[in-house]
C-alpha cells in the first residue's frame, strides 16, 4: 500500500491521541510520510475522541481520514459513530469487551471485524487500563508493516513516554505485539 488511512477512536482519557502519534511517528522514523490530526483538542473531556493518522510513501495533501482503511475503536459509542466512515471490507478492530450497538452480523459481513481482548490483557498484566492505548498500539503494528517495523514502533514509544515509565510501556507494547 502507498497510502493508508487509519482512525483511532475512543473516549477522553484513553490516550487516543498518543496512540495516533505513535503510529505516525513510527512511520516518520521509518522515513515515510505521516500525519496525525485530531478533531478533538485540549478543551475537551468526555465524549468521543478520535485521532486520524494517514501514512504514505510521500507527502499527502489532505491529512485526515476520509474513509478509513483501518478503524480502531475502544468504546461502543465511537464504533457506532465512525463505522460508516470505514471503507467497505476494511479492517475494524474493536476491544473485545465493548458492547456492539450495531447489528453485529451486518458489521461482520461488511467489514473485516477483529475483536481483541485488549482491556482484558491490559488488566491482566497491570490491573488497570492505564496502558490500554499502548497495548492497542502493539496490536495494531501488524497492520502497518508497509510503513514501519516493530523497532520503529519501539523508538516512537521511547520518544513519547516519560523515561521512568518506559519499561512498563514497553511491556504493554509487547503484550499487544504478541496478542
Amino acid at each position: 500500500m502507498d497510502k493508508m488511512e487509519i482512525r483511532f477512536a475512543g473516549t477522553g482519557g484513553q490516550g487516543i491521541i498518543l496512540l495516533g502519534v505513535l503510529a505516525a511517528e513510527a512511520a516518520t522514523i521509518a522515513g515515510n510520510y505521516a500525519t496525525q490530526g485530531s478533531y478533538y483538542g485540549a478543551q475537551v473531556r468526555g465524549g468521543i475522541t478520535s485521532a486520524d493518522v494517514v501514512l504514505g510513501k510521500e507527502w499527502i495533501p489532505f491529512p485526515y481520514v476520509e474513509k478509513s482503511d483501518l478503524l480502531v475503536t475502544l468504546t461502543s459509542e465511537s464504533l457506532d459513530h465512525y463505522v460508516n466512515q470505514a471503507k467497505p471490507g476494511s479492517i475494524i478492530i474493536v476491544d473485545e469487551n465493548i458492547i456492539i450497538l450495531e447489528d453485529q452480523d451486518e458489521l461482520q459481513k461488511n467489514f473485516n471485524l477483529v475483536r481483541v481482548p485488549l482491556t482484558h490483557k491490559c488488566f491482566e498484566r497491570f490491573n488497570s487500563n492505564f496502558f490500554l492505548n499502548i497495548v492497542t498500539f502493539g496490536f495494531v503494528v501488524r497492520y502497518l508493516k508497509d510503513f514501519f517495523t516493530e523497532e520503529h514502533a519501539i523508538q516512537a514509544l521511547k520518544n513519547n513516554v516519560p523515561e521512568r515509565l518506559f519499561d512498563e510501556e514497553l511491556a504493554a507494547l509487547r503484550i499487544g505485539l504478541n496478542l
Partner: protein
Amino acid sequence: MNKKFEIEINQDWCKACYICVKICPKQVFTISEKESFRGFKEVIPSYEDNCIGCLQCENMCPDFAIEVREIDHAVEKS
C-alpha cells in the same frame, strides 16, 4: 436507638475518584473488581450498616453521586 442510614450511589454520575471510599470513617465502601460499562470500577456501599451518617462521603463527592438518607423509623412503624 441506633439510627440507620441508607446509601444510594448513582453509578451514572460517579467518576470513580474514590474520595468517598477513603474518607469514610467507617469503611462503608468497597470497590468493585470489574469495570463498568463506562470503564470505571464501581463504588459499592458494602457495609451500609456501619454508616453513622456523618455525610462526609456525600458532601465530598464532587459528582453528586452519593446520597445518604436516614431511614425513617416512624414511617416504618406506621
